[in-house]
């Protein structure tokens, strides 16, 4: 084989090493464009990103290693960087050469990491980003001298403007020609710092001053009063964005799906195949797409604020509160977002560096009262809680709703605290967070990140959500039984559901749910709500042969009586118990699918489903007993 053919067959592998906020992602994007493959390293929650490109006529795979301040790992997730570098991870070939990416403005600190990387002995080069900002801040750096001091090639770039990227691409294609250091930097922390200081002294003619604009903004944004207000406004904005502003787009998708289904039904001969396609499959696709507006909006704002530098400030402001329950400031946005929907909330945990804090946040996110619970709460509260005023304009119905929101959020904090004291206790990772200077992200970087999140959701969670939705639709509609001809059309619907797989499951689990005050009809609703919590409302409407999902369904469940006892089925105890069940239970396959994607295993979604089901069952059981004892049976 010729040398050229060999080069074409085995691509060169380049590893990007650097601290967070150092511009590593910008360099990765500048080198690979939009062709990044995103996955997970086996067994850990660390994101794996690789992209292929051609540099100096050669095929190159660029590996974006997780951002790190040090090569002394704390915990298995941080150890990934070292394990990749040494080729210890099965299926991941070690890099042939390393590209250290460092912010020129923080060279003083970055040299400490450079020293560690050089000691690995792999061919290395250094890419200095933000050299324009260094100049603006009054710094002067001699890059050629830095090359001589370190003994490796050094390139200065302004990644987002493409300055220096061409010479970088030429350099990266030929690591065989890179100079190697004659002497390795020292290994002990003290000597390493002295080495860094001596390098710095000879290459940095002027130290960059503080970023003035950052200092000016921080005087307001981190001011005890103004900063707290800005934080509150930002968080309200976040919440509003996914809770309310995503709604028009979600409604539009809903209409589009209904129209498509109707159009398709008109073209197909009536029958089960037509029903499966128009209701099952299109319904399933809709169930996936409905999350897209929230995900796109949340991540647009999240990445924008993160790239700007605000997210670190927000975490700084709220850290004390989150620290009380063993979490940290960066968990707050995820939990808040989960109040609208746990799916984007769980995806947002990617910004939490501590794996245990991230896992704890993921596991309690479903407890936050998401918007899918609202239709269920609205139906039950509207039907059974008297609409009377408690104090002026404050009504009893509103108070009950507020109470349910509170119980959800409060339990999330309690469970997080318990998890952090038990199965997720201790990892020895100190809390530290860099406050980077404020920087304007480029449109390209921003869009790449947002699109990356949406694509990852569609590919890996979307497939699970789609299959489960179709499966649940089949359970509610098969086996197909013909209702006796004397039944009215509405009653026929109920007959068919009762004889479907879901109906049989509802009957089968009745002994288990009877202590909670639920009958088989609620059982069917619970099975159906696994697709999404609000589906219980439309399923109940079908069972109660209600013509619409609000007034007539409300009347139907209020007047429903148990045929055996002649008692009302929905007693206060049953209603309270059902409400409590929905506060706790993880009735949402989409959340489970996203948990599976984010934790890279079925173990954690199974654990979350199990503990929340146990919590829901226990709390509902207790609620039913207590309300019955108080005379509400």
């Amino acid at each position, binding site marked *: 084989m010729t040398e050229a053919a060999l080069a074409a067959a085995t691509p060169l592998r380049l590893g990007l090493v650097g601290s967070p906020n150092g511009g590593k992602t910008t360099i990765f994007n500048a080198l690979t464009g939009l062709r990044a493959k995103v996955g997970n390293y086996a067994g850990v929650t660390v994101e794996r990103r690789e992209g292929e490109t051609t540099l100096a006529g050669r095929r190159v795979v660029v590996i974006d290693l997780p951002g790190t301040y040090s090569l002394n790992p704390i915990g298995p997730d941080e150890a990934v960087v070292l394990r990749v570098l040494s080729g210890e991870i099965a299926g991941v070939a070690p890099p042939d050469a390393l590209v250290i990416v460092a912010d020129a403005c923080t060279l003083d600190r970055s040299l400490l990491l450079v020293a560690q990387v050089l000691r690995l002995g792999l061919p290395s080069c250094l890419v200095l980003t933000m050299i324009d900002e260094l100049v603006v801040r009054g710094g002067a750096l001699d890059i050629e001298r830095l090359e001589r001091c370190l003994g490796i090639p050094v390139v200065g770039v302004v990644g987002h403007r493409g300055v220096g990227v061409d010479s970088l691409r030429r350099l990266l294609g030929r690591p065989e020609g890179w100079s190697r250091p004659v002497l390795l930097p020292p290994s002990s922390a003290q000597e390493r710092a002295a080495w860094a200081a001596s390098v710095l002294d000879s290459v940095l003619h002027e130290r960059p001053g503080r970023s003035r604009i950052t200092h000016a903004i921080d005087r307001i944004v*981190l001011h005890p009063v103004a900063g707290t207000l800005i934080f509150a406004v930002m968080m309200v904005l976040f919440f509003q964005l996914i809770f309310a502003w995503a709604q028009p787009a979600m409604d539009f998708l809903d209409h589009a799906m209904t129209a498509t289904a109707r159009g398709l039904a008109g073209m197909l001969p009536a029958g089960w195949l037509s029903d499966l396609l128009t209701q099952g499959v299109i319904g399933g696709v809709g169930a996936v797409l409905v999350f897209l507006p929230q995900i796109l909006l949340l991540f647009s704002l999240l990445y924008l604020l993160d790239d700007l530098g605000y997210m670190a400030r927000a975490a700084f402001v709220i850290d004390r509160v989150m620290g009380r329950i063993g979490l940290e400031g960066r968990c707050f946005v995820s939990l808040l977002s989960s109040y609208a929907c746990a799916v984007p909330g769980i995806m947002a945990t990617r910004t939490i560096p501590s794996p245990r804090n991230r896992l704890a946040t993921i596991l309690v996110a479903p407890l936050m009262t998401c918007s899918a619970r609202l239709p269920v709460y609205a139906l039950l509260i509207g039907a059974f809680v008297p609409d009377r005023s408690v104090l002026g304009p404050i009504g009893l119905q509103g108070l009950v709703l507020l109470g349910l929101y509170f119980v959800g959020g409060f339990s999330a904090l309690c469970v997080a605290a318990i998890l952090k004291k038990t199965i997720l206790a201790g990892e020895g990772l100190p809390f530290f967070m860099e406050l980077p200077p404020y920087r304007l992200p480029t449109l390209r970087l921003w869009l790449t990140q947002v699109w990356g999140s949406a694509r990852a959701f569609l590919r890996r969670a979307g497939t699970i959500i789609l299959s489960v939705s179709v499966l649940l639709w089949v359970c509610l509609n098969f086996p197909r039984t013909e209702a006796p001809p004397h039944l009215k059309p509405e009653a026929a619907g109920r007959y068919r559901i009762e004889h479907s797989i879901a109906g049989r499951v509802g009957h089968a689990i009745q002994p288990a749910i009877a202590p909670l005050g639920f009958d088989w009809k609620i059982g069917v609703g619970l099975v159906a709500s696994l697709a999404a919590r609000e589906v219980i409302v439309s399923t109940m409407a079908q069972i109660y042969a209600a013509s619409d999902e609000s007034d007539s369904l409300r009347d139907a469940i209020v007047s429903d009586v148990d045929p055996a006892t002649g008692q009302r089925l929905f007693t206060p105890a049953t209603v309270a118990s059902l409400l409590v069940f929905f506060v706790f239970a993880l009735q949402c396959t989409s959340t489970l699918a996203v948990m599976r994607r984010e934790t890279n295993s079925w173990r954690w979604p199974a654990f979350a489903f199990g503990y929340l089901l146990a919590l829901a069952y226990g709390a509902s059981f207790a609620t039913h007993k207590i309300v019955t004892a108080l005379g509400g049976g």
Partner: protein
Amino acid sequence: MDDGRSDTNSKAVSLAALPVGGRGLVAHVRAGDAVGERLLDLGFVPGTPVLVLRRAPLGDPSVYELRGYQLCLRRSEAERIHVRPIP
């Protein structure tokens, strides 16, 4: 130059004890475990000048400036770092 007075007279205090706006030179870091190692890797090496830039509205954590960057640490971590205050 320093005549050694700061070594004998200026007693090392915990970084957490410095007020906002206070400066100090890192004297030593309680090392020996992963947290201590990490603080060294973040640049809290003896001799490094540190400035207490600000505290969070609720009093914790605090932002420190060192080696040309700003780092936020909680009181519990800052207490492991001992500094000699610079007046």
